[in-house]
């Protein structure tokens, strides 16, 4: 009888091409997702070294980070963005990599388009030159972000040398209150472990709360794993996973489906398997969360006040908190619900899926965005947009005063014209509240889609549980 293993170790071991003492394992990569921002230098280096893409058939490219979210029939006004997108096209053509380009209905944020077509499947290794690649872990895949040198490595060899990670179990037990979402769960997790708590680890999310989440919710949780310092986080596949995948374009069909499901069912952590670290949260204790600072761990429940820096546990945390408050122009002791906002951003690889738009639309239906607030919805993909329009969600948002945009990363990182002006305060469903992330001098509060929608209507944060 072999040693009990975690799901993380099982997926890892199955992908080891070569193992030698004193060297990192050489891991095979099942799927490499590519986008326009972190790939040009990798392709250029392939050209310079005369190397080819080893497996274009395990590679998929799209453009998402800097595409405009306005009318695409108008030429891109930013010559540098246009050049980067054009470079992606030329590289895909030269290296025979499939590309879902801006006029393709399947285009969208790289971490949304692969799952929604059924390309992300349990037990796979998935990489992309983007730290939110952890999203795909929701399907029980080992998925992590890489830099451009590693992008080149995977293009050339379909493998990556990787040191074996430590493992962490994050258990969320019990049940969630109504109005508390996957976003609040992951913000609570990051607040608990800290922005560096997951360094060197891969996380398995476990417990009844995680099991009860939809695939969209699990993607939201896994997506923000990197904000807690861990490169990858995953959820073991179960009936929810199989039901989501069945019938999707790239999922196995017919007899293959049954055989695939049998294999996927083995992807669970064995009884008695040991994690290097275990963290447990109680679902009942999680409130809707709002970040107040400039790291994703600086959050509190919506009924709380902005904390006092002097109450932070370490000297360095106190200093960081002081800097954050200054940047955010907030005073300790201010009630979260008294913080007024100027902008609302609904979208991103964290919360730009159909379920997120449905949840937010229920809150804005029949209401108006508060005077002085500018709100926008950026669907995560062309297919999310199409589905939302078929359900009439675009009309609900438009009638409430939201702008309804074309798909892309948009104001999550503000590489395109969708940015905050200096001093503007935004309720955002994205993943990073770093200084200047959404525009130099902009102030970001991370929240769930429901909380963002409610803030758009009220003009300040409100407790969605009371609506």
């Amino acid at each position, binding site marked *: 009888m072999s040693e009990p293993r975690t799901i993380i170790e099982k997926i890892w071991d199955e992908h080891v091409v070569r193992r030698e003492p004193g060297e990192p394992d050489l891991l095979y990569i099942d799927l490499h997702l590519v986008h326009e921002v972190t790939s040009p230098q990798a392709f250029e280096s392939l050209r310079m070294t005369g190397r080819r893409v080893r497996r274009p058939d395990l590679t998929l490219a799209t453009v998402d980070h800097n595409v405009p979210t306005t009318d695409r029939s108008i030429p891109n006004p930013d010559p540098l963005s246009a050049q980067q997108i054009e470079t992606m096209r030329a590289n895909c053509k030269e290296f025979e990599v499939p590309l879902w380009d801006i006029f393709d209905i399947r285009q969208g944020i790289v971490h949304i388009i692969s799952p929604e077509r059924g390309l992300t499947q349990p037990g796979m290794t998935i990489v992309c030159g983007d730290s939110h690649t952890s999203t795909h872990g929701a399907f029980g895949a080992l998925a992590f972000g890489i830099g451009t*040198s*590693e992008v080149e490595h995977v293009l050339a060899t*379909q493998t990556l*040398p990787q040191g074996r990670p430590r493992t962490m179990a994050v258990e969320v037990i019990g049940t969630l209150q109504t109005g508390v979402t996957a976003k609040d769960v992951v913000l609570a997790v990051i607040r608990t472990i800290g922005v560096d708590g997951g360094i060197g680890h891969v996380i398995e999310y476990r417990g009844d709360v995680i099991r009860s989440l939809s695939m969209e919710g699990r993607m939201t949780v896994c997506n923000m794993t990197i904000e807690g310092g861990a490169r990858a986080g995953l959820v073991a596949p179960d009936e929810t996973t199989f039901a989501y995948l069945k019938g999707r374009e790239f999922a196995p069909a017919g007899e293959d489906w049954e055989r695939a499901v049998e294999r996927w069912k083995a992807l669970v952590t064995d009884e008695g398997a040991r994690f290097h670290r275990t963290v447990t949260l109680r679902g009942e204790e999680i409130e809707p969360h709002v970040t107040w600072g400039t790291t994703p761990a600086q959050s509190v429940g919506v009924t709380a006040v902005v904390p006092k820096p002097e109450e932070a546990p370490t000297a360095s945390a106190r200093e960081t908190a002081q800097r954050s408050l200054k940047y955010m122009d907030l005073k300790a002791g201010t009630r979260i619900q008294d913080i007024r906002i100027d902008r609302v951003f609904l979208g991103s690889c964290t919360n730009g899926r159909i379920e997120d738009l449905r949840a937010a639309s229920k809150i804005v239906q029949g209401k108006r965005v508060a005077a002085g607030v500018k709100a926008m919805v950026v669907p995560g993909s062309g297919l999310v947009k199409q589905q939302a329009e078929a359900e009439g969600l675009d009309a609900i948002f438009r009638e409430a005063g939201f702008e309804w945009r*074309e798909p892309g990363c948009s104001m999550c990182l503000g590489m395109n014209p969708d940015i905050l002006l200096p001093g503007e305060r935004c309720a955002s469903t994205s993943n990073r509240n770093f200084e200047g992330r959404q525009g130099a001098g902009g102030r970001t509060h991370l929240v769930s889609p429901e909380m963002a929608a409610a803030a758009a209507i009220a003009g300040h944060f409100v407790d969605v549980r009371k609506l």
Partner: protein
Amino acid sequence: MKKVSQVAGKAIPLNRADVDTDQIIPKQFLKRIERSGFGEFAFFDWKKDPSFVTNDPRHAGAPILLAQQNFGCGSSREHAVWAIEDMGVAAIIAPSFGDIFRTNCSKVGLVTVQLPQQDVDFLMSRSEELPDAPIVVDVAKQTVTVPGTGWERRFEVDPFVKHRLLNGLDDIGLTLQHVDAIAAFEAKRDPLKPTTEGAFKETAKFG
């Protein structure tokens, strides 16, 4: 990758925790398709403050960057590493690093040294007080020393990263020596795993 065995010189004491890669190189500079020339944009927003440490002429040209915990967290953008490298920095010393950032450093030959908090704090205050006093990072010996003081600390480095740093080895070239093992692995891969061939198929256009 270039060879690195030792980095010696003064340091830039960047005394902040959780410095994310958005601060190191803001998004507007990620549109460039080149790999060089990012140094002038490093810490672009922070540098607007005249008192920011990289503006201090006493630390100009330093080959060592001192930082606090979780340095390089956030986005996977390797542009952050290229920017720091382009500033003339060859080694970073901190209590901890973001995982992806640290890996990216190892790919381009930027040395990352993890030392306990009190040791980083010591080097940080020394560099603030005596900006010209050199620090020596020795990759082969795995030590950080402050010449003339007897202060020496050993650091851990992944043996494979050390081997590549000391010999300036190209990671991809090393992996391609095992192309037979890769092919053998591919031959026995689960055929149920998806491919992206179907992604070439045209679908309805929109927009």
